[in-house]
């Protein structure tokens, strides 16, 4: 009975906060606007705390992996050392005259020369994965949609490529421009409309307390 009582209280708090925030967007009443901003500010603080706890969870999972020596545990050692190293360097930066706060020189160096560089290298690999994925798509799901997808992808790649003056103009660039401006935009808007309706429906189910991701 105690659990049920707390469940009702939780639902009441969540639904009220949701409705006030929603109304704060649509109705021009100063009290609602103030409450909305306050709720959003609290949510931002909680989200920031959750990022820190997420990092602790990451550390905990990888320490357990090292302790159990489960698959890929050697990589976990690198992760733990890197995590602790970056935190340590960031904390020591103000004492070494390298600035303070999140934008200190140490953090900036790590982001510029390690995080951004590795992220960009990984992004560069995606094109190769996509070429293989396109090849497998034809073998796995040969259909009108998959053939259309591959033809459009091919036309787009060739249409975007630099035009060599020695080669005849096959009109691929014009075709690519038409595809990207007419059918692609129409399709993207249709998909976005469906996603927007899905987002609103999901939000409303939570506001109506049908879905309760905050506990039973």
């Amino acid at each position: 009975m105690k659990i049920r009582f707390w469940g009702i209280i939780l639902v009441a708090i969540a639904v009220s906060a949701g409705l006030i925030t929603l109304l704060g967007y649509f109705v021009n009443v100063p009290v609602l606007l103030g409450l909305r901003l306050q709720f959003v500010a609290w949510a931002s603080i909680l989200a920031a705390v959750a990022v820190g706890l997420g990092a602790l969870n990451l550390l905990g999972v990888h320490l357990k992996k090292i302790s159990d020596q489960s698959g890929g545990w050697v990589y976990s050692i690198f992760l733990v050392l890197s995590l602790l190293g970056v935190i340590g360097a960031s904390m020591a930066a103000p004492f070494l005259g390298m600035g303070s706060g999140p934008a200190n020189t140490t953090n900036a160096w790590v982001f510029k020369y390690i995080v951004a560089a590795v992220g960009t290298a990984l992004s560069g690999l995606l094109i190769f994965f996509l070429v293989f994925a396109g090849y497998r798509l034809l073998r796995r799901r040969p259909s009108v949609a998959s053939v259309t997808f591959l033809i459009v992808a091919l036309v787009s790649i060739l249409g975007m490529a630099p035009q060599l003056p020695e080669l005849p103009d096959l009109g691929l660039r014009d075709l690519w421009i038409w595809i990207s401006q007419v059918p692609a935009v129409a399709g993207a808007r249709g998909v976005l409309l469906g996603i927007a309706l899905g987002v609103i429906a999901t939000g409303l189910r939570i506001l109506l307390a049908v879905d309760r991701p905050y506990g039973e």
Partner: protein
Amino acid sequence: MLELGFVFLFAILIGVFTALGRRRGARPAALRPVEALQSLPDTVGQAVETGRRLHISLGSGTIGEMDTAAALAGLTVLDQISAVAAVSDKPPVVTTADGTAMFLAQDTLRNVYERQNASQRYDPTSARVAGLSPMSFGAAVTGMIKDESVAGTVLVGSVGPEAVLIAEAGSRANINTVAGSSDPSAQALLFAAADNPLVGEDLFAGGAYIGRLPAHIASLRAQDVMRILIGLAIVVGVIAKTFGFLP
């Protein structure tokens, strides 16, 4: 106020369709076949039978921002799937790139085990932050699929180009990958890379298809009605603009 009216109409439609779906003698709703969602029971069954883990990912989006609804749709799928997959020797593993989503996933998993009177089997590290940035998340999940003997991946949430890495890892491990994202460009990538891509609003239909939840089926019907109304409004607007009735 037009926007508020739109939201109220949507809410009323969900309420009406839920009531109609719950009344006695109501016929079971006929849903159009979605291959990706229909493949889920086989994937879950395979995970249970082979004693391997099912991997459910909520993507790299952040709760509290634009990606919230997609992550919540992922939580609904997690709740439905883990109720079945929890009986496996190895519990399902949930990955995200956001601390808040991790807490919600842990809470969902704990509730599933409590409902099954198996709280002692709940492992908090089953729901984890794989990486704190989209690319590190994608790279970490790629390694996890290989290392943790995953039997299938279900990715429902907001995810960017890193989705290709996850789908590719699934393909190399020869496992089924059901994946959808609220990002249209990632949807295009997943169409090529994933075994079973979720296209458009299919991402939000998990609760209706897997659990046959009346409110979720009702919200699908409400979405269809609203889509028709918006379509009509666009056509009327175009005609009015063409003939000069609108500035």
